[in-house]
């Protein structure tokens, strides 16, 4: 019938275009707005090196938010980010204590540690059916405990390796920080997985209704577990990059990334209930949050003022586009 054919015409448009939703567009608009506002305060906010620096810093959050988005799409959440980030960084640096081979493998080692914690999260959520919000809370506590014991008992090495330094601060393409390139690669991978692979479909399906997904013969538990492992690995990778940026690992270096990661994902239009959201939005959200925090930190006003503005801006932006439909 006619409307069906119309539908089919619209499908001839490239998937990418069709997938851009208003939230994404608007949040990019908000970014511009924010910059202009910053520009009013000081033209330095529009300078190329400031912007590149923000993108560099954003890519740390970006990598972490990528993992967060994956679990949020499942209708879950990962509160273990802070200490997974720290653990990834600390373990990567600690590797240097065990010979040149380990030093070279520092980055993978760090990521691996994150994936291990992710594995525990995944088993807890997928196989033991414990709400993710609480399992990840617990694993976060465990990870912290491990790091405390480790630091206290082993006086670990905590210098970032040259490779880590290079990944985070070097620039393969002149002017473009490597961190940014890495984020781009991670992001591209994520987009591909979400839009083109069976795994991605399964993630969205489970996020919408796991029961139906299961009855469709999808191994939902494995998908959920893999997602959490990936999220853990990405958080740890973010930590590794941070360590490279700071040239060292330290405890509590992940504390500043949990809420921003969640906020970024949701500001990007992903439904916290799962099943809905596009990566482009998360990109926008990450840049938005990073810029906001940076501009606020530089504006000469007391911390209190910053907090209030931060909150108001988040809510205002969500009111602009983050509203769920009046009746589902």
């Amino acid at each position, binding site marked *: *019938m006619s*409307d*069906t054919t*119309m*539908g*089919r015409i*619209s*499908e001839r448009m490239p*998937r990418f275009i*069709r997938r851009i939703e208003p939230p994404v567009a608007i949040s990019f608009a908000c970014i511009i707005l924010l910059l202009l506002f910053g520009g009013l305060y000081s033209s330095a906010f529009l300078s190329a090196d400031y912007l590149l620096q923000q993108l560099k810093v954003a890519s740390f959050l970006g990598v972490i938010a990528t993992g967060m988005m994956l679990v949020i799409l499942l209708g879950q959440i990962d509160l273990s980010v802070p200490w997974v980030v720290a653990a990834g960084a600390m373990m990567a640096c600690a590797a240097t204590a065990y010979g040149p081979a380990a030093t070279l493998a520092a980055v993978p080692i760090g990521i691996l540690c994150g994936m291990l914690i992710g594995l525990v999260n995944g088993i807890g959520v997928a196989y033991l059916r414990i709400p993710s919000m609480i399992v990840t809370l617990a694993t976060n506590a465990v990870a912290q405990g491990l790091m405390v014991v480790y630091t206290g008992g082993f006086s670990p090495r905590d210098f970032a390796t040259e490779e880590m330094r290079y990944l985070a601060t070097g620039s393969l393409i002149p002017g473009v920080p490597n961190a940014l390139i890495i984020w781009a690669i991670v992001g591209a991978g994520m987009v591909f997985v979400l839009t*083109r*692979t*069976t*795994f991605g*479909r*399964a993630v*969205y*399906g489970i996020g*919408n*209704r796991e*029961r*139906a*997904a*299961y*009855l*469709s*013969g*999808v*191994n939902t538990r494995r998908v959920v577990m893999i997602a959490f492992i990936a999220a853990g690995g990405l958080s740890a990778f973010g930590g590794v990059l941070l360590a490279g940026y700071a040239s060292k690992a330290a405890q509590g270096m992940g504390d500043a990334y949990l809420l921003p990661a969640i906020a970024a994902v949701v500001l990007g239009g992903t439904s916290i209930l799962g*099943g*809905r959201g596009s990566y482009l939005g998360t990109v926008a959200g990450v840049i938005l949050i990073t810029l906001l925090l940076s501009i606020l930190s530089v504006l000469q006003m007391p911390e209190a003022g910053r907090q209030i503005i931060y909150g108001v801006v988040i809510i205002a932006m969500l009111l602009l586009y983050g509203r769920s439909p009046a009746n*589902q």
Partner: protein
Amino acid sequence: MIGAEALFRMEGISKRYGGVRALEKAELVVEPGRIHAILGENGAGKSTLIKVMAGVVTPDEGRMVLKGDDVVFAGPAAAQKSGIACIFQELSLIPDLSVADNIVIADPPQRFGMIDRKAQRRLAEAALDRAGAADIHPAALVKDLPLSRRQVVEIAKALARQPQILILDEATSALTAADVAKVFQVLKRLRQDGMALLYISHRMNEIAELADTCTVFRNGRNVATYANGSKSNDEVVEMMIGREYHNVFPPKPPAAVSDRAPALACRDLSWAGRLKDISLSVAAGEVVGLGGLDGQGQRELLLAFFGVLSGLSGEILIDGKPVTLNSPAAAKRGEIGMALIPEDRKTEGLMLPMSVRDNLSFASLDLLSKASVIDSAAEQRRNEDMLDLLAIKTAGLDIPVGALSGGNQQKVVIAKWLMRRPRIILLNDPTRGIDVGTKQEIYALLRRLAADGAAILFYSTDYDELIGCCDRVLVLYDGAVKRELKGDEISEHALISSALNITGNGHSLREGAEA
């Protein structure tokens, strides 16, 4: 219009959803003391119409008149206050609340501003009684009840409100004849009490028995209103679908005796006291029905085959070889090739917010992908084939499946599994909420699949269906196979009597219900 002045009237009601015209200048006149049936194929606009009446959907244009004065409903609450109670096709029970809580949900009995639990319990029990479902415990959580019981609760809930106008949108679609009979007695009593009833169903025999007046909808318009019985079934269906129509079940091929092992079989299958030593076999090319009252273990049996139940005793055989299936994933794999059309499309069949495309492909992703990368072109092709094969009425592959009409949603569930070309097909009441025309298509389809060598096991709450298209029917009672009916033995009478586990004969449907 016959006699009595209108209690409620809708004039020129239109409702558009994007490109879709759900309602187009629809008219309806509701009179007290009569049962008014509304017929129409899937997507004709029936549910939309009554959603407008119930204040859930606000129409784009048109007016509603209640007892002579215009009304506009701000929301469901408003409609209820003016005495309109509605049982929605997609039920509106709160899963985590108890049956009693749900029944009195509109205005619970209160003392000093607190809900009076004792009184609530009494009301609930009374309502359940009237709905002929005294077997449901008022303290049970709704989410623990099977769909059919929920529908009864929904009916009890509507009754508890004592409305002037009661609307049932396919409220009995999951009920077996016996349950339906009980409900009908209630409805007829209400009619005598002067209540106006609107009754939507795709089961012609129900409408024939119950309705006083009938209104047929097509493409959002009311195309005809007539006194019940003044038209033949085929005439009615032709009005519904707007083309020539003859009600015929596809011919059954003579039972072919083959020495090949049955595609699907089980021996002494038992589970948690709900399945008791069930042994059966379904040969390739055979359509076997599961009959019996609702909740006698039919669902559990299908789930057991599909690898959902754990702790089974006895064995399941595929092509004569025993297998252990411990997940749907295992059951659908190539060499086994099983498919289950689940009971509740909303929670088990579909992801309502996701697009038609995603839903259609979801069970077949392994086939549509190489190295788990989806081949969009192939996907597009297969999806379009399915839309055509089942004539699914949708505004495109990318609109959320939740936006389709109930029946079309059901078709999507079936299509999503047929896409795999399964060789063993388990169906759990697949034609629920599907209009007569489409039903015929599906019967024909099942036959074709069988002819192509599929083995089909088919639970239905609709006896005509079992009679019309099954080679054999196994009647379950209390988790065990009570009787196997072959060929001409399959009659409504035989089905009922064995369903009620009465091995005599000479029982009519009605008596059966009382028994």
